[in-house]
């Protein structure tokens, strides 16, 4: 099952757990399963069925397009990180 | 609009006549009236050298010269440097040495380098750096520009 690294600013929702193994074949499924275990998680990561602006998703160390439909392998390592604001990504949009 | 003056001058060996307002700089005249856009505006106050041209044999920032001041004088710009089928040795040296990145400062540097080599055909590295200190380049760190000018001196 994919492993989700919980960012320090979200660990108040996971009782301090730093990484969580949850089932899911897409980012959407992973987040839904996280939400089931840790209510409130989805509201921090998503709005209107999409990832919140300002949050970037890394899968196995690679920056993804930040889409909920992104496929994840069974042994994927997923990171939710602040999007690179002000740098390239933010202003180039 | 201010009354325009008639000016006759020589540009790159050709006699040229133009009308300009007294407040227009030589840079404005070259670019806007004569469409010689090789001289660039980087600062419009003589600090960057991107508009360098040679006026009666002397290197000037064309943004600090009025168009009307060129009456009866001779102006050399980047457009006049290469022969129809052959680049000037300084231009070749800039290409061979990869002495440009964005290229906006390049015409000014080449004109400055020409003015230097016209009066000092064998400059030292320090003399090149001293002479070119009035031209700003933000891309290259100057290393390859200085090498290009030294190479051009050696080739001439």
């Amino acid at each position: 099952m994919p492993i989700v690294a919980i960012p320090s600013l979200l660990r108040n929702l996971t009782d301090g757990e730093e990484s969580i193994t949850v089932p899911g074949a897409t980012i959407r499924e992973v987040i839904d399963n996280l939400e089931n275990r840790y209510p409130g998680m989805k509201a921090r990561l998503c709005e209107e069925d999409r990832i919140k602006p300002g949050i970037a998703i890394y899968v196995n160390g690679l920056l993804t397009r930040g889409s909920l439909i992104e496929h994840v392998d069974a042994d994927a390592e997923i990171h939710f990180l602040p999007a690179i604001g002000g740098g390239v990504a933010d202003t180039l949009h | 609009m201010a009354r325009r003056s008639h000016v006759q001058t020589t540009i790159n060996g050709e006699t040229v006549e133009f009308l300009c307002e007294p407040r227009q700089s030589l840079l404005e005249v070259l670019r806007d009236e004569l469409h010689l856009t090789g001289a660039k505006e980087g600062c419009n106050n003589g600090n960057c050298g991107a508009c360098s041209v040679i006026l009666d044999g002397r290197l000037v920032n064309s943004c600090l010269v009025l168009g009307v001041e060129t009456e009866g004088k001779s102006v050399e710009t980047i457009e006049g440097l290469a022969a129809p089928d052959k680049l000037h040795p300084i231009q070749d040296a800039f290409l061979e040495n990869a002495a440009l990145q964005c290229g906006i400062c390049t015409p000014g540097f080449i004109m400055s380098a020409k003015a230097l080599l016209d009066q000092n055909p064998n400059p030292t590295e320090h003399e090149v750096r001293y002479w070119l200190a009035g031209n700003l380049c933000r891309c290259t760190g100057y290393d390859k520009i200085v090498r290009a000018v030294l190479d051009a001196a050696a080739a001439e």
Partner: protein
Amino acid sequence: MLENKDYKVIGTRPIRHDGVDKVTGRALYGADFQAAGLLHGRVLRSPHAHAKIISIDTSRAEALPGVKGVVTAKDLPDAGDKVADLGEGAVNLKHLCDNILASDKVLYKGHAVAAVAATNPHIAEEACTLIDVEYEVLSPVLEVRQAMEPDAPLLHEHLKTTSLGETADEPSNVASHIQHKLGDPEKGFAEADVIIEREFVTGTVHQGYIEPHNATAHYNADGQLTIWCSTQGAFTVREQVAEILQYPISKIKVVPMEIGGGFGGKISVYIKPVAAMLAKKTGKPVKVLMNRADVFEGTGPTPASFIRVKMGATKEGKLTAAQGYLAFEAGAYPGSPVGPGAMCIFAPYSIENVIIDGYDVVVNKPKTAPYRAPGAPNAAFGSETVLDEIAEHLGIDPLEIRLMNGAKEGDRRADGPVHPRIGFIETVEAAKAHPHYSAPNGKKHHGRGVASGYWFNIGLESSVTINVNADGTINLVEGSTDIGGTRASIAMQAAEVLGIPAESVNPSVVDTNSVGYTAVTGGSRTTYATGYAAYEAAQEVKRQMITRAAKLWEVDEANVQFADGEFSSINGKEEQISFRDLCARLGETGGPIVGSGTVNPGGAGGAYATHVVDVEVDEETGKVEILRYTAVQDAGKAIHPSYVEGQIQGGAVQGIGWALNEEYIYNAEGEMTNASFLDYRMPTCLDLPMIDAVIVEVPNPGHPYGVRGVGEVPIVPPMAAIANAIYDAIGVRMTELPMSPDRLLKALGKI
């Protein structure tokens, strides 16, 4: 160190394709664009750093003969508070629009408030002085720590701090807080034998591109909007203008002219939408040019910052913990590069226990924009000088302590992901082996310093189309504006695939109607990602050519191979034809060949640099002279080594300027007092020695030729390297940038 074992074109140094145009003055930059009936635009800017706009009266300006149109924020569509999705993150659309033309408040001196189009630039300028703006002047907030105080004047009533999806209740100048935490920092510091904690302050600095911003716009009667401009990304201009003007992208064509430098500063739009608004209002093409003061005061610099760094190590030199606190000035609207700063600050090292906090804070200065490795130089100035101090305390050579703790493939970054194959250790080893590092350095007031730096690089979308010509050449169509020789570095990758010389490729940078979507020239991505797209397009051409050869020889495609520019038939029939000769027979074998490639690669591969610098400090005047400079960098694979060296040298010199001279100097009213090239003192060639650029090649597994972006990381190490060299020379630790003569004399207790 450069290897070229299997390549014919890659790693060579051909003349760049746009070179002749650029040395003869023929190349057309944005300001060189001319059109019949052209009007000239000029922007009126705020004289105040912080004020409410009570009223704007343009009637006197409109009455001036020669004036054809005036626009203000009222001419912009109502932005509300919509968050614009511009493809790669999101920005508040009201902030975006207000930065183009202020609506209710001006937030920095130089903030645009109105614009005029007239028959010549002088009339437009005169007309600006006839626009009457009534302001209610407010107290400016000019420094990040001051702006974070609870009682600081607020720039935006509705701005509240967000922390990874959570929004605070009370308004604040702190737009966001980010945090990365790895391991147990408390435990790590408890294990340390030496702990150093220092505070650092860095100034606001500008990219300093020589070409000011420019834009010419024209509206056709059918509603087609065309914009000719200098930009790092034509598609990005199209998106931003479409959002700001609420206009469909299909009706906007952006034509990228040659660009005179950007370094990140020509991604955001400023006058492009204004030119479009004036063109719409007047029905004529309108050219708007900035002057140098406009560029300093009205476009995004990179932020001033306050940084606290604490690092701990065992007496053997192993780093046990690190803590970073980064507060960055975003300028007038949120969006400083504190994110990348926080991501990069300890990235050269493998440290088990790390905590990093970053704050994005609005102040009354221009909205910051990217500048070469945005955020990383500020951060590295702190971390790399603290590491130097730790090495000194422990009596360990500064390069040795970097080798002991250097990050390698599989090590976890403080922000979570693990490093792929990286070349940090290799840069340190090369610096150590360089003759510079072992040269004598004992003279009085002479000092040597080293520092390293990291930049993650980006991938993003690129598209390339290749059209094959009958004479064996190809026309390569791309959307990446060429800011430093990328026509060559991209063409060379296609040439390598097809076994043809670099000179047989004709690269063209085209407008947004003429090539597939391509992200900006920025993030050190162009040679990497657009080069990757060129590789893919060339592979597609190769596949089609194999089909043609098979047809010609009446053999199965599987029996045609391609090597060294020759197609040959294997398994039976002995046939051979060169790429060039086959190109001449495309007509008879099926018609023209067009290959295309599009990519959005995720494996940009991080870049590392390690710099060594010798300085001489004049204790009388406080002036620091750079005596010798060596910059080592992992390029993955240097496609055109001359232009890789050029990036390294240019980045190092921008860093030297940042280290020693450059800063926005503000008075108490928030007015920049040095908004000219004379007073904002960038390095000239007389200030510098040659810069020895040393390329290390640790191929990036995320690119077919191993390319890593090279443009940004060379600006990361210089500030700390020079600070460390100054310490070596005179025994004083500098913690404030720039290390200008006055600051040095203060540090020496002389003033």
